[in-house]
């Protein structure tokens, strides 16, 4: 009996070893299939929770609705003016770029996604989005919210995508301080979700003009993140341990602890690949036809 147990235990250890050494493509396919299978449950759970939260918020905020409505109307008028101005500036910008022969730097289409989960093992700081390759999401793409950059896509299955957040120590972003024009790499601090600052920028020359409150934007170097996305603001600048450089601590513009939505910056190629993949997927009619007896 004991011997049989050991044989079974060894067999499972062997299975674990085989899984461990599966080729990357097979492993990705297996993980993707499991993720796709469980994502409707996660999405349902999240929608249920959000519904509950919004109901409570609605009940609590009924009294403030009139005031809020007026404030929002004022904001709409202000924002419409801003949009008109921005449109004119974009037209001018486009014209000047054409005259100078520049390529447009950020031709991405934004894919709106809902956050449906987090890293189940808790070793990395990630969130899961409810859209994947079939919607045009590809790996190594920037993910933003209306407030600013939140991270990049790392593992993409047909219907889900995992986003490595800015706060994760393995997430590195090429950045530029907007005011002084100083370039550098922003590295996650591995902080608790929602805790600030979330990342730091090392090797800033002593002479560079970097101050608390400065805006930090993506520099566009490195290829993953398009140029000009807001990362956050500098909250502290300190001399590095060696004393040769300075280090800036950055608070992200988006609150990484309360993410509900995200936009993935997809390229035209991603969208074309998604269209091809969607066409290749068998429809229900095809499946019924395949199942029919000859």
């Amino acid at each position, binding site marked *: 009996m004991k011997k049989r147990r050991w044989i079974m235990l060894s067999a499972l250890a062997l299975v674990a070893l085989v899984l461990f050494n599966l080729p990357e493509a097979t492993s990705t396919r297996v993980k993707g299939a499991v993720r796709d299978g469980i994502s409707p449950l996660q999405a349902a759970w999240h929608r249920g929770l959000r519904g509950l939260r919004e109901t409570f918020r609605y009940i609590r905020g009924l009294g403030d609705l009139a005031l809020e409505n007026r404030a929002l109307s004022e904001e709409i008028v202000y924002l419409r003016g801003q949009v008109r101005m921005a449109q004119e500036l974009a037209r001018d910008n486009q014209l000047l770029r054409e005259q100078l022969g520049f390529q447009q730097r950020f031709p991405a289409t934004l894919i709106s996604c809902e956050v449906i989960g987090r890293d189940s093992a808790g070793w990395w700081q990630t969130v899961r989005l409810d859209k994947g390759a079939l919607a045009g999401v590809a790996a190594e793409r920037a993910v933003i919210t209306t407030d600013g950059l939140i991270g990049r896509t790392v*593992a993409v299955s047909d219907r889900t995508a995992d986003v490595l957040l800015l706060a994760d120590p393995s997430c590195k972003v090429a950045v530029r301080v907007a005011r002084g024009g100083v370039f550098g790499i922003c590295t996650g601090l591995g902080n608790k979700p929602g805790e600030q600052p979330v990342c730091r920028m090392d090797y800033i020359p002593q002479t560079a003009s970097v101050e608390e409150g400065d805006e930090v934007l993506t520099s566009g170097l490195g290829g993953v993140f398009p140029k000009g996305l807001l990362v956050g603001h500098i909250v502290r600048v300190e001399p590095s341990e060696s004393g040769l450089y300075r280090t800036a601590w950055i608070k992200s513009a988006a609150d990484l602890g309360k993410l509900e939505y995200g936009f993935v910056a997809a390229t035209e190629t991603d969208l074309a690949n998604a269209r091809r993949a969607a066409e290749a997927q068998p429809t229900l009619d095809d499946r019924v036809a395949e199942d029919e007896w000859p």
Partner: protein
Amino acid sequence: MTLLVLLFWLLVGGTLQGVMPAWRHMGQPAFPILLGVVIYAATNKKFGYFLLAALIAGVLEDSLSLVPLGSSVAAFLVAGWLALRLRTHFFADKVSHAAWFGALSAATATGTMALLLRWQGLLALPLRDALWRMAGSAVLGLVVMPVLFALMRGLERRLGTWEGA
């Protein structure tokens, strides 16, 4: 029937673990719900069920995170094997014993996982951080396991699949 109930709990555990954010303290460990199902199978079910639970729970946990496939299976096997060795000395249906089983197995699984991730060069946690995280996992295991065990046992009693005393 036992298999179906186990599969149900694994599915529930996988879903919950994927939507619950990691605990904000003590190294940010994740709630050990899938591990709880494995430990429940190790302490209350036949050996075969424990192995099957470890395999499915491991594949689920790895698929829902960036951990390489197979790592959690190994971690669950080690933690479950430990629970299996101790099962004759404890009563798994006693709350305090379930809590200690939970703490010990969660810390073991986290430690094994930290070693595996370090060995693969994916995440090199300093020893102090790894121990802190193991302590955090133990605290979560201490709290989560008795609740999970009670829920699982309750369902089994209702369905008539409970094999315990």
